[in-house]
């Protein structure tokens, strides 16, 4: 069963954070206990997106070994009005913290991997979380690969942009395959995603990537208009994007 999900991509701006936040909210709405982690230490964004103004402890502190994971978690269940529970573990957005994280050595990264792997016991087993979702940094970053290694399922957010397609194909072959990770693709920002083209898009994607396609998200002007300030799964329950998220959550629950 896929309980730790890493959301990754080759390029930036493919919709990883949008997908992570909304999937986490979708599961929480279904009564699940979910924790969303910001593992994009180069450009943290969840604090702004979820309007968390300050935190006493950050995910950086947990990975540095200066606090335990329960100190990092912030309960946002009331913000998404869910039956379940939604917690977040945030990356410190301060410039000094970003600089500090970018200068870590291999030994530190090895210990950070150990601490990420330990979340399976501390959060899934001891604290009874149903899902952990890692929002990662694009490309081959240490923090992202640590997240991929720790995950049961990797969701790759991708678009039909040519350089993104080429890079994603390479990552599938040279990264996820090497770690024997179950990988599924989410195609985002698709123009002309009418129902009549659904089969054609699905076949094209499977042909390119040779891995299952979890979902197709059309290019919604509403998403751009929201400027990253709306959790669709919570605030727009009837929006087509929320329907697509529910379909993706159904598929993940089946695995």
């Amino acid at each position, binding site marked *: 069963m896929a309980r730790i999900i890493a959301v990754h991509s080759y390029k930036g701006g493919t919709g990883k954070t949008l997908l992570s936040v909304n999937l986490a909210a979708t599961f929480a709405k279904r009564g699940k206990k979910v924790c969303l982690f910001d593992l994009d230490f180069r450009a943290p964004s969840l604090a702004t997106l979820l309007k968390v103004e300050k935190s006493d402890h950050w995910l950086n502190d947990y990975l540095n070994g200066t606090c335990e994971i329960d100190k990092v978690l912030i309960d946002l269940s009331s913000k998404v009005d869910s039956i379940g529970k939604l917690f977040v573990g945030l990356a410190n957005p301060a410039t000094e913290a970003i600089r500090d994280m970018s200068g870590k050595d*291999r030994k530190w990264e*090895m210990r950070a991997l150990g601490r990420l*792997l330990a979340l399976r016991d501390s959060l899934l087993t001891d604290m009874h979380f149903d899902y952990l979702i890692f929002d990662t940094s694009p490309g081959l970053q*240490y923090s992202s690969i640590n997240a991929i290694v720790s995950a049961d399922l990797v969701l790759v957010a991708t678009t039909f942009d040519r350089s993104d397609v080429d890079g994603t194909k390479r990552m599938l072959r040279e990264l996820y395959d090497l770690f024997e990770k179950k990988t599924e693709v989410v195609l985002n920002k698709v123009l002309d995603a009418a129902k009549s083209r659904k089969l054609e898009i699905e076949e094209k994607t499977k042909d390119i990537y040779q891995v299952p396609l979890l979902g197709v998200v059309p290019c919604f002007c509403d998403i751009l208009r929201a400027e990253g300030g709306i959790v669709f799964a919570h605030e727009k329950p009837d929006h087509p994007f929320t329907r697509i998220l529910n379909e993706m959550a159904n598929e993940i629950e089946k695995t």
Partner: protein
Amino acid sequence: MANEERLGRKPLHVLEKIRENLERLNDKMEVMIELQKHGRKDIQLPLADAPLDVMTLLSMPDHLRKTAMTVCRVGRATADEVAEQTHRARAVESAYLNQLVIMGHLKKERKGRKAYFFVERETKE
């Protein structure tokens, strides 16, 4: 009385040292046997420190990565336990684990008749 105690302890201490050295020798012999079995004659001394980070995992040959990943996930395991996860033979896993020890990526510790392999993540600084 104090002198007698000291004299009594000394042989015990010497025996303990001999046992430790024999165990170390045994470990080295085991590594040599495993490597010879798999056609490697260029036995190297264990490297002091080679962190098992994800980039190192990525650059490893597939057969060693599978073993190293299993130890990373499980934390601490015997060759039997690794073999159970990878569905490969115990002897094969034992050779790969010892190779990873030689490369400095894993540590090995004996407890009785069992040898445990693990990633040393905490520094001794």
